[in-house]
């Protein structure tokens, strides 16, 4: 779920930057340092604005100036039970991996409807019900998060597509198009690899 969140961070500035536009530099550095990172159990997607840039304090010993900056950011915190859209990355016999913005999800074959089975002989390998549903690399899926774990700077999730309106999302659906666009933006801000973005773009163009 997305939130507007007020946060605070200490930013240090090298003495060579001391001057009139210091506050701008502080903001720039803040944006560079913070946007697209995972801060505990949420991702900082974008910084809206900064306020309360404190006076700089010279750090003894190094000469760097330290500013305490308050800022307002769009953060995304995935919750257990939340339903999100994702793009399938790789498929293996045990399930498939999907990427929802910066978050990597795994959907195991146990958490799929019974009729969806792994098909290794297809190229590329896929999960399919031998009818309209084909989940292969690059497929748009809707996933419900059932488990989350965070480590410093990283987050992983377990997803399920066993439920109504979950799983394969047919292309050409206005909603899916919008959802994908949001994901795309997420990825852009979160600094996900360019290849994945290209893949997402392609998909979006297709829909």
């Amino acid at each position, binding site marked *: 779920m997305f939130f507007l969140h007020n946060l605070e961070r200490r930013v240090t500035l090298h003495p060579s930057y001391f001057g009139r536009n210091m506050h701008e530099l502080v903001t720039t550095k803040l944006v560079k340092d913070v946007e697209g990172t995972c801060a505990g159990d949420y991702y900082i997607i974008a910084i809206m604005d900064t306020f309360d840039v404190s006076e700089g304090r010279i750090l003894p010993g190094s000469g760097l100036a330290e500013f305490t900056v308050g800022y307002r950011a769009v953060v995304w915190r995935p919750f257990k039970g939340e339903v999100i859209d994702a793009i399938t990355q790789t498929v293996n016999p045990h399930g498939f991996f999907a990427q929802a913005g910066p978050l990597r999800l795994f959907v*195991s074959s146990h958490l799929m409807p019974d009729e969806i089975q792994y098909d290794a002989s297809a190229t590329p390998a896929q999960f399919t019900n031998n009818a309209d549903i084909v989940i292969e690399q690059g497929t748009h899926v809707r996933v419900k998060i059932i488990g989350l774990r965070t480590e410093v700077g990283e987050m*992983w999730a377990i997803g399920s597509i066993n439920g109504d309106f979950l799983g394969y999302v047919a292309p050409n659906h206005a909603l899916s198009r919008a959802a994908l666009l949001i994901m795309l933006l997420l990825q852009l801000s979160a600094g996900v690899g360019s290849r994945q973005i290209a893949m997402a773009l392609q998909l979006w163009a297709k829909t």
Partner: protein
Amino acid sequence: MAKIIRLGNRLRYPITVVKLRKAPGEKIKKQETLLEYSFKWTREVGDSIRGDTWDEEQTTSVTWDSPTDGELTRWLIREGELIVADRGVMEVKEECSHEIQFQGLCAMCGKDMTEVNWAAETRDTARAPISMVHDQTNLTVSAVHAQRTEQELQSRLLQNRKLSLVVDLDQTIIQACIDPTVGEWQKDPTNPNHESVKGIKSFQLDDGPTDLARRCSYYIKTRPGLQDFLQRISEMYELHVYTMGTRAYAQNVARVVDPDKKLFGNRVISRDENGNMFSKSLQRLFPVSTHMVAIIDDRSDVWPRNRPNLIKVSPYEFFKGIGDINSSFLPKRQDLLTSDATTNGVSQKGRKKQPAAKNNKEEVAAAGGDGMANMGDDPTLTKRQVEEQGRAFEKQINDRPLQLLQEKLDREDEEAEKATVQSEDGSESRSSSPPSQRHHVLQDDDDELKYLEEHLTALHTSYYAEYDSNQAPHNLSSVPDAGRILDGLKSHVLQGCRIVLSGMLPRDTNIYRSELGLQIMSFGAELRQKVTRDVTHLVINASQPGREKLLEARRRPHIKIVSQEWLAASFSQWAAVDEVPYLYTARLVGEGDPNQKAAVSDDEVDETTTVAKAPNGNNKFNGPKLKLVSPSGRSHTLSLSELPDDSENDQDDAEPGLLPDDLPDGQSSPIDGLKTFNWGSADEELAEFLASGSSSDEEEQGDDDDDDDDDDEDQDYVVPDDDGGQGASSSSSSSGDARGRAARRSRSRSKTASPSLGGGGRKRKSRDDDDDEDDDGDDVEVGGNGNTPAKKLRRTESQRASSLRNQFVVDAGGGGGGGGEDVEMGSSLPTPGRSDEQDLEGAEKRQNGGGEDDDEMDFDAAELEAEFEAEFELEFDKAAEAEAKAEAAQAEAEADQALLKEQLEGGQHTGTG
């Protein structure tokens, strides 16, 4: 999914069950109390200060909590029961077996598996220890699940009548290279290599080990016929890629080889997911059963656990001398068998020497450091390997080995052209026509895949033949084992052959454990250490055959002496190939003067039926030599007294006309080593050996002397005014004189000394290389008070460090006096002090030298052996000599300066004698 829960061994047995809190059918939660029990223990009570204590038995009642979630199905114990040891107490139907886990999360229920719980003895992460997915290491499954997955895989394969085939990339189906030369050749249609490199695809990686490597292009050459091969093989096999390259590299190569992802799909595993830095393992992909898997790889040593399943292919070497781009992530290559067959001279030479030196270094480093035994994901090791690869990359990009090779080839072409033109019409009628057909380094003449396809087809056929014949209900536990079938197919190949290797492996290796040995045995041949009566084949490495085995084999005509290429061909074709094209003939060539020699050898060639043509030109044999005649008519002479002197004056063997003209390009000649061989010195040596001053020898040596004199004059010229100057301090002059004299003497020594010493001359030769000091001792004994400064200086090089020893020697030398005295005096000078110390040492040696002489007069086999080894040291000696010369020159210059200074200052120099 009922599971028996045990009490665990942390309890204080024996215990008595007091009460069961839960009844069957109830839900239980982790850490919920399930039963109460009591146990007895003793406690010391009383007043410990007064020593008035006694033990008292206590009974304590405690609870036992559930280590898991689920539903209790039944108890295995009753209330009041005494339990003496850990045992199962209840059966629980678990909510989730946590069989698939992703990064510490259960992929089935979403719970965090990394939570540590006091109630449970084992961590939940331990429930899914097996990683079996190609592109992930953080997705793990339980053994049960792995088995289930694999059974599904097997039944699917059986249904499609397929097998699994694990394919290595580097040097097996492709060769990669980052030499920018390839790119230039691709753009240049006039380049002779343009045709070969035209179809090469390239890509760039952004994860290279160094910045340089990040910017460079990887050129991927597929093995000829690869597309068709893979296409046909993929109908019988499900293909997997298993490489020691990085993930990005593997995927890019897979994209080059298989753009539609039809062949490999995403069944690609790379170094990043392998989990082991040194070896590959089928268990990583097929943890339960490898019965339906075959491997093709150019390295067998990286598959220590899966040797039966491996079909070893000969390494693909298109970019000559480049080797495997990812080899720093593998153990050092030990089987040099087939690489020689395809590489040409330059790379071969490089290979020959480097592995020996490098291996040693590597092994020492490994033994000293983190070691090969430490096979885990050692970060320092990984870093080291990455650095190593980075260095290799930089070297390749900067040195451009391919360009060098091509340039060399061009030069050879030019020379050959010159030679032919000159010989054809005598006059210099070279009308500046550039070589019409330039040879090219890169040749695409590999046919390994053809055989490989045959083998894989054979394996598939016999596998399913066996599967079908086994018409029992096809349960999955009884599928035939591909490894066993492969063994069966291979073991017929060389059946009945009893093979001895010569010059193929380092001397002290256990042949039965070596890669080559294992391979030979896997093809059904017997491996022998010694040449005995029942041996059928002697496989030799033509560039460095072992002499004793050859001699032995020569005595037994039924033993076929074949080159290692025979073995390589047999391995790759899976058939005992006809030996004739690989057959060597070993002849013991007698002795005599060169002309006579040539005639004899020609005669012999005529006699040998297997030889197609006579060896041309370079049969300047002068000693009892073992001549190896290769199938193509080139002969390789193995001298029994092959120990060239240090003289570097005879270069005549480098003339192009003496070399076989018909050397097919790209093919290595077994006599490459002879190009640099010093025939003149061999002659000289022979003369000594025979102790006969035949006229031709005398002439030859006369030439040598002339050359030496030239050198001496040069040196004398440098220090002309020294003799007139300060006597005591003018070391350079006296040493220069001494050098002149001694050099001449050392030359003439062979003439004067040989007769007097008789057979001993032979012996001295061997010591010449083994031990210089002794030689100098001889010098004094025989030739008077001279000493050879060059040798002295060379000795200096090796001994400069041990000043303590030198000090000791000074004392000894002071007592010794003798012939070295005047030299000592002469060499006490302002120049580096080592020379006079060395003189003293020389003096000492001189003292000892006389005694040693007589002991070694007889000529025995051990000495011969030593001499043979000394041959290898020859290279080093030469280098040392060159250095010594340079230093001598420098010393003179310094002395000059000092002199000049002295004269200018008019002061007196205090040179201590």
